[in-house]
């Protein structure tokens, strides 16, 4: 607990750097970021201590507020501490770009942001939770709005503000209903609540809406692809990598402690929403050309995978296979951790590219691998992990998710469950392959080939602090990808409070015996084999006369121009056509000059892929609200006599009602 209080103290100190005088601006930034990094490391150490010992700390009561830490919170403290430390180190270099643009505010709020997330996780009662949740929402709003000179940033920030408050409202309703059926609002009392079944459904619905909105699940995701790209890159990293996981924490707290995990319908709803979010999220991600929007949509996908595993665990519990649900919930935590690492890494990579070239439109990039080789290498590892390839931690979570879904199929006695699993597998297969395509496209267009615009010319390698931040995450992704045992072990003890019921980790990898027989994924052996075979093959290439340098790429006898290489939009064209019934792409071709039927034409081509949910769900609702407000305006004429008339009519109506 000392570590935790130390961390909180450091965060508060970090917030105070905001008030240093303007001439110490740079010093304030450095000290703020270093304090955040140090405090995050303390949080990390604290959470490791809790996970190893499996003890529960608290509740420590301070007046109306209280703190409590158990292993479930410790798992998320681990995520916060790890990514918070890495991104804070990165932020030392990246934040310097905001010198003269309220940099003190940026680093001060940065501390407050991490502090509020830690407080949400360690909250011991509903008041503390809601208070820190609200601070988290407001601070992240301010951080998204940091570049408020840009119009689209302000729009995204206010959209985020509105959406996140809808979510907060839903969570408030959930807590209120729950609290009114318990002795008081502390988590311990609420765990012993006496909700009747219809009330429990309402609490589940509001809690799920609230947390799903914060996690960016479809159809409540609309704010996410706008807000995450608008924020400064290190803030986007933390929002995607950690804040979305805080919502998973809250949802888990509700499901495991306050509500009944074993209601069949709940699991079905959560899993369906997760599957749809995973598939549609990655589908939209592979259509975007703004680097950070791609990553934001990919966050929707990964949160979808996490909730798929969560729902699968709930379904296994509901069908009476509670011990089998274990792998699904472990998959939730493992994938939360690995998604946090890889998404932070890629947002940091995107930030470096933005820093170096001034654009995040991948159509204008290319050939960055030769100009910033280390950044390119780290980003490659992150991209591989998001495509859930072997040797990265991404596959560990994905493998466990797939195992849990297949356990569901195998355990299902009912035939209709099997149909559901078929649909789940089709969607998960599409998701996996699309994620691979999406990150091949992102990496290939940004870092490989030739430059697509002169912006690339000024690109350079990043300063050491940014590289350290990225390298830290990249090394961890590879480490946990090749030796998943510590990660899986910690996450298992987080679920069970230190007691390992059914060990899944092994010296050589992960294995799952719940199906009745074994399934193994041992990346260590795989890595040894790959290094061995690849090494031999690489050795055969090392001969002297093996390579000949040539001037130009072969192009049917012509010299290829830079514009001839595939663009990102072109690369995703076949997919756009295959899924046009979902995406509904809008093409517009404008002829600027048309002298001849076939030659000498100059044309402009616009492609717009509308987000179907905002087209068919949000816009009608918005129109309805605006229209009904317009009609209501007729009542408000501003004349005093009219209002007296209204009062009279109301009184007469009340009197008549009273008589009746």
């Amino acid at each position, binding site marked *: 607990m000392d570590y935790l209080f130390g961390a909180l103290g450091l965060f508060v100190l970090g917030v105070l750097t905001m008030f240093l005088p303007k001439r110490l601006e740079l010093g304030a930034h450095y000290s703020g970021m270093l304090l955040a990094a140090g405090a995050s490391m303390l949080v990390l150490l604290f959470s490791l201590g809790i996970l190893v010992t499996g003890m529960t700390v608290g509740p420590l009561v301070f007046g109306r507020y209280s703190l409590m830490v158990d292993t479930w919170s410790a798992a998320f403290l681990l995520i916060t501490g790890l990514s918070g430390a890495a991104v804070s180190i990165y932020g030392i270099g990246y934040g310097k770009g905001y010198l003269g643009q309220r940099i003190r505010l940026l680093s001060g709020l940065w501390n407050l942001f991490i502090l509020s997330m830690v407080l949400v996780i360690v909250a011991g009662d509903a008041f503390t939770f809601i208070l820190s949740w609200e601070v988290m929402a407001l601070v992240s709003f301010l951080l998204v709005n940091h570049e408020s000179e840009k119009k689209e940033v302000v729009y995204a920030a206010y959209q985020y503000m509105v959406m996140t408050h809808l979510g907060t409202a839903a969570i408030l309703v959930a807590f209120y209903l729950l609290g009114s059926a318990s002795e008081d609002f502390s988590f311990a009392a609420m765990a012993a609540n006496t909700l009747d079944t219809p009330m429990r459904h309402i609490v589940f619905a509001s809690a799920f809406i609230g947390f799903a909105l914060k996690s960016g699940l479809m159809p409540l995701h609309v704010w996410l692809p706008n807000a995450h790209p608008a924020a400064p890159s290190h803030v986007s990293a933390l929002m995607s990598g950690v804040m979305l996981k805080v919502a998973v924490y809250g949802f888990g707290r509700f499901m495991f402690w306050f509500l009944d995990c074993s209601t069949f319908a709940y699991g079905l709803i959560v899993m369906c929403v997760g599957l749809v979010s995973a598939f549609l999220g990655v589908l939209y991600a592979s259509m975007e050309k703004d680097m950070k929007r791609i990553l934001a949509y990919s966050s929707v996908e990964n949160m979808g995978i996490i909730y798929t595993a969560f729902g699968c665990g709930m379904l296994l519990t509901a069908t009476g296979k509670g011990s089998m649900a274990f792998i699904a919930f472990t998959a939730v935590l493992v994938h939360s951790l690995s998604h946090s690492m890889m998404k932070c890494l890629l947002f940091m990579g995107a930030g470096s590219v933005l820093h170096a070239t001034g654009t995040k439109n991948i159509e204008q990039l290319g050939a960055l691998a030769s100009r910033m080789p280390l950044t390119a290498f780290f980003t490659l590892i992150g991209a591989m992990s998001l495509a859930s390839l072997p040797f990265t931690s991404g596959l560990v979570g994905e493998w466990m998710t797939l195992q849990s879904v297949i356990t569901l199929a195998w355990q299902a006695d009912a035939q209709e469950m099997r149909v559901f699993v078929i649909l789940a597998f089709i969607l998960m297969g599409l998701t996996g392959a699309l994620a*691979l395509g999406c990150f091949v496209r992102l990496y290939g267009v940004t870092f490989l080939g030739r430059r697509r615009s002169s912006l690339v010319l000024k690109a350079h390698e990043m300063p050491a602090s940014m590289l350290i931040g990225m390298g830290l995450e990249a090394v961890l992704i590879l480490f946990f990808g090749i030796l998943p045992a510590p990660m899986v072990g910690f996450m298992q003890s987080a679920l069970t409070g230190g007691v390992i019921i059914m060990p899944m980790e092994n010296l050589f990898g992960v294995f799952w015996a719940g199906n009745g027989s074994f399934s193994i994924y041992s990346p260590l052996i795989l890595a040894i084999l790959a290094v061995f075979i690849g090494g031999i093959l690489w050795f055969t290439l090392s001969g002297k006369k093996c390579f000949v340098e040539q001037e130009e790429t072969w192009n049917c006898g012509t010299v290829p121009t830079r514009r001839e290489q595939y663009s990102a939009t072109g690369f995703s064209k076949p997919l756009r056509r295959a899924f046009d019934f979902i995406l509904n792409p809008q093409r517009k071709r404008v002829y600027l000059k048309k002298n001849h039927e076939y030659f000498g034409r100059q044309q402009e081509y616009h492609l717009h892929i509308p987000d179907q949910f905002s087209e068919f769900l949000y816009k009608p609702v918005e129109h309805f609200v605006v229209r009904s407000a317009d009609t209501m305006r007729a009542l408000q004429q501003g004349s005093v006599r009219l209002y007296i008339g209204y009062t009279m009519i109301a009184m007469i109506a009340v009197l008549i009602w009273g008589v009746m």
Partner: protein
Amino acid sequence: MLQNSVAGLLVPGILQALCLVLFAPLVAGIINKTKAVLQKRQGASILQEYFDLYKWWKKPVILTKYTGWIFVAAPVVYLTTSIIAAMMVPGLLTGSFSFGDAFVFVYVLALGRFFMTLSSMDAATAFGGMGGSREIYISVLVEPAVMLAVLVNATRYGSTTLSQMVIQYDQFFFTVPAVLSCAAFFLIMLAENSRLPVDNPDTHLELTMIHECMTLEYSGRLLAFIHLGSMIKLLVFLVMFGALYLPLPIPMALKVLAGTLIIGLVETLNNKMRLFKVRVYLSAAVILLAVAVIAQ
């Protein structure tokens, strides 16, 4: 128990991979010969692929100035993943333990595809990007079918471990799911290995190429790596087809030969289909497999 199996699995695994690597060009040669005979041509010798590999091996690799390390690493990764896949394939020598299950097999192949498609964009021509883009398109459509193929066997045998899925004649012989999944896996095999009617391995016309498009910029030893990798992958799928899906009580070599002849026949009888028709072709595989899962 996992620890004990490590030594026990590595030696047969390596032997099996060596064996598949040695025979892969022969299988490709037999397919080509079959096609030639069916088309009333004389055709090249069935050993031609060995000669080709030797020829490429001796030639230097020509690199353009735009390419980076990924361009050189990709063929190495591709061949490595193919060899690892060859170690994992069940039904030949590997014992009851392996270092990965069916999902790992799928993702190991995905690693090779990831690097090949990346390298296709590295040479900065329209050809490479076209090949990479189409490869991604096909792989997205194949993946649900692959996942369902795993699901069929996992629900039947209660495990995703490949060696547990080896077909057992006494219990699983010409039943509805067995026949349906056999047909569907054949469709998947053609699509995964860039064969007709999804992709034409013979042509060099940019309208029809997919896999060849990606390799267009390669030469010398790197090209040899890629071709050997593709041939191993085809043989691995043929062995999988025989071991997991073909319900015939004959030795594996005969099963592979039968698969080879059928591929030759199918490639002679079919044209390459339009790229956007592949969607329909692969949904056929998905539907067959879905029915197979339900029929169990």
